């Protein structure tokens, strides 16, 4: 880490990164103390590197090198660019919440429409009185850094029994080049509620920026939630996202992640099944090209009996792209009758692409059915030949097979419209391939 050390008033050393940002970080003095502690944790650990098992294949010291200074709050020109980006990114019918360079943009958001159904606050508001949201049970350096530096985020609370009439779309827009945005959001879904939440990450004219996002989701009993994340950051950006999800009993929680952007990306999801009878489905597709590095790391913790978890992931790797998938299913001693399955497949389109898969099982209960599978390989020559023999050009034949390959993950999205939207993203990525 390339950080200069500065002395603060009370004599303790903190690096420039935090010292220069401190004045702009929202929160009461108590909150600032929490931030300082988190930053000290981060400083002690430094950026994760390959000697840390969880980061073995994503060495941020080598891939990222240093954390960029905090982005300035967006000015009028930036907001104008962001407004244009919102137009292209907005999903039909969804109610938007927009974060620009780590700051909530009320003018671009549909707060009023949302407020009729749920409680919407910003992280900034919450931190004026409460530091609770900055506390996450993790020793991970990037999560500690997020707690120290988070400038804003959305804090949503969906009351028990609420059936949302439209999806909520949280759009993260980067307009500032060579700067970092730290956001942290919380979504509380009440008992028996039904909601669809979409998160989008895009750039509006910015490049070489860094995003560090954290989302804390808790889902009450009998709720039904779909969570879709579409990450299409600039080709030279960095996106590190940490998700903490805890679900209650008899919940249906369906997660999908699509990665099509960023030079270096890592999505780390920590899922805890804390109530019986729940079904968790976590799926995703990483479409990577050039020298992109895409990492998906999951921990699915079956803490109680009688839950089902399913993970279906696909990675398509072109050029010199690297894909990492680490998935761990933990079955706690009492979590009998757990049914956990994980399937990861990587498709290598180029001789220089690399796929690293590490599916793990950690099982302490004896009456369970758990399994995982992982494959890596090229497109099937005989299938390609079959299609070409029927007159399809090479590229089209490949595209067809790739679509079928990623389709197995995409079809896990329950909502027809969103599924079509994601298929569209995959199709456009394939068209862009040379």
């Amino acid at each position, binding site marked *: 880490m390339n950080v200069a050390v500065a002395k603060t008033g009370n004599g303790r050393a903190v690096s420039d990164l935090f010292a220069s940002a401190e004045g702009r970080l929202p929160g009461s003095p108590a909150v600032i103390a929490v931030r300082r502690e988190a930053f000290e944790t981060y400083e002690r650990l430094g950026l994760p590197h390959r000697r840390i098992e969880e980061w073995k294949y994503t060495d941020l010291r080598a891939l990222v090198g240093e954390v960029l200074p905090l982005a300035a709050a967006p000015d009028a020109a930036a907001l104008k660019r962001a407004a244009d980006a919102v137009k292209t990114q907005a999903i039909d019918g969804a109610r938007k919440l927009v974060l620009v360079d780590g700051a909530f943009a009320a003018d671009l958001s549909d707060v009023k429409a949302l407020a009729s159904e749920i409680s919407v606050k910003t992280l900034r508001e919450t931190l004026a009185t409460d530091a609770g949201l900055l506390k996450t049970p993790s020793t991970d350096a990037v999560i500690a850094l997020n707690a120290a530096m988070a400038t804003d985020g959305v804090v949503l609370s969906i009351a028990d029994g609420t059936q949302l009439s439209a999806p909520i779309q949280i759009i993260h827009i980067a307009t500032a080049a060579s700067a970092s945005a730290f956001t942290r959001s919380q979504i509380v879904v009440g008992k028996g509620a039904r909601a669809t939440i979409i998160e989008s990450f895009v750039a509006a004219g910015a490049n070489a920026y860094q995003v560090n996002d954290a989302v804390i989701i808790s889902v009450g009993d009998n709720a039904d939630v779909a969570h879709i994340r579409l990450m299409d950051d600039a080709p030279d950006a960095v996106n590190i996202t940490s998700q903490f999800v805890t679900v209650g009993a008899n919940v249906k929680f369906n997660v999908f992640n699509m990665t099509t952007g960023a030079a270096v990306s890592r999505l780390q999801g920590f899922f805890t099944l804390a109530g019986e009878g729940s079904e968790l489905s976590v799926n995703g597709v990483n479409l990577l090209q050039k020298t992109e590095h895409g990492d998906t790391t999951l921990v699915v913790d079956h803490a109680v009996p009688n839950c089902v978890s399913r993970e279906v992931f696909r990675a398509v790797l072109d050029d010199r792209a690297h894909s990492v998938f680490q998935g761990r299913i933990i079955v706690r*001693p009492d979590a009998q009758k757990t049914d956990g*399955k994980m399937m990861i497949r990587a498709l*290598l389109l180029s001789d220089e692409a690399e796929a690293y*898969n*590490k599916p793990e099982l950690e099982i*302490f209960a*004896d009456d369970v059915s758990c399994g995982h*599978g*992982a*494959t890596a390989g090229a497109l099937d020559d005989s299938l390609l030949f079959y299609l070409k023999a029927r007159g399809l050009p090479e590229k089209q034949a490949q595209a067809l097979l790739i679509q079928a390959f990623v389709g197995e993950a995409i079809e896990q999205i329950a909502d027809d419209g969103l599924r079509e939207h994601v298929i569209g993203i995959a199709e456009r990525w394939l068209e862009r391939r040379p």
Partner: protein
Amino acid sequence: MPAVQETVDRVKRIDVDQYRYGFETLIESDKAPKGLSEDTVKFISAKKNEPAWMLQWRLEAYRRWLTMTEPTWARVDYPKIDFQDLYYYSAPKPKKTINSLDEIDPEILKTYEKLGIPLREVAMLEGVEPKPGEQDPNRRKIAVDAVFDSVSVATTFQAELKKAGVIFMPISEAIREHPELVQKYLGSVVPTSDNFYATLNSAVFSDGSFVYVPPGVRCPMELSTYFRINERNTGQFERTLIIADKGSYVSYLEGCTAPQRDENQLHAAVVELVTHDDAEIKYSTVQNWYPGNSEGKGGIYNFVTKRGDCRGNNSKISWTQVETGSAITWKYPSCILRGDNSRGEFYSIAISNGHQQVDSGTKMIHLGKNTSSRIISKGIAAGKSQNTYRGLVTAHRKATGARNFTACDSLLIGDKCGAHTVPYIEAKNSSATFEHEATTSKISEDVLFYCIQRGLSQEEAVGLVVNGFVKDVLQQLPMEFAVEAQKLISISLEGSVG
């Protein structure tokens, strides 16, 4: 699905309290002073009448070891080992110079008899009829190298092997008699700097087996080493080196036991295999070190580095292991697939019971073109044990056409144990095809349906199918060992989790 009662009973039968090899042989022994220093290394080297280059090699390893720290990444938990509180060399005290097997201390002979290891080749050579039902008259001959604590006490069938050109002798003898071979190959697969325990072994190894099979020779019999730890507070550090020259074949078996003691004992072995063009080595292990008592007291710490190097084209190395003993197992028999079209195999059954902790698996490193590997691993955890499969499959950029198939299943018996799977799969070129699965769905529904339709219960049907599958692994063992292994595990694997 939970294990059926039958399985539970069978596992109980081989539970740690049933350890049958826990007796101790009371003989006088010749020990190095306690602790580890350059003097210890020199003492061992002098005891073995080693040439200067060997002492130098050991000392370099020792100096490097001083700079290393113990690995902590494995899922095993044990108190810190005090490396100064161990004896690094212990040999049965020779009463006089030994010229034939008859002059070996009868106590040692008795020990091996008790263990069922045939050190006396006489009976077979003289064509004595085996008593009916006692021995199969068609039973193949096995040459045995018996290692007692730190030294080899007897190697059988040496004359017959010599006729075929096969060198099979204790490694301490090989260092003196075939220095050119030892110098060329020792440390070429597991370098002295490899890892903490391998480096320690390089500094203080006392004995082990050396095998060289010359070009084109198919070794006329199974070779076997039987390791026995007897002395208290003694670490056993053996080193095995097997070289299969062009077009040759050898099958090698290894067995191990130790007395029942309350304190833990350290066993840190290194095994190196080298195959040249078109050669094949088949290496089988039945590991049955003392696992500790039912409270988790005592037992062997088994920290072993085993690696095979398929140096030549079309060569093959196959590891088969049946792991039932040791308090802690830390062992990853690996294959470096360097030669084009070379092949690596790993078949493993690991059973843990009581408080045993197993962290075992394999590494398949694909470097040559069109290399292939197969991993079949079955873990069974019972009692309060933890059983981890940890494996690496990697294909380098130039390893075009690399193929791997991995299947690892585990079974838990009881709710106090744990079974874990940690595979690392690294594909660095697009023509590599890797398949990994760890799942119960391996048992085809069709087959189950077929069995159930014929009147078997669901459990019987699963037992039947899976048993057939385990037998495939057992069949990789040479016949003589398969019998022993089968005694250790006649366990079905129904209800396995990945």
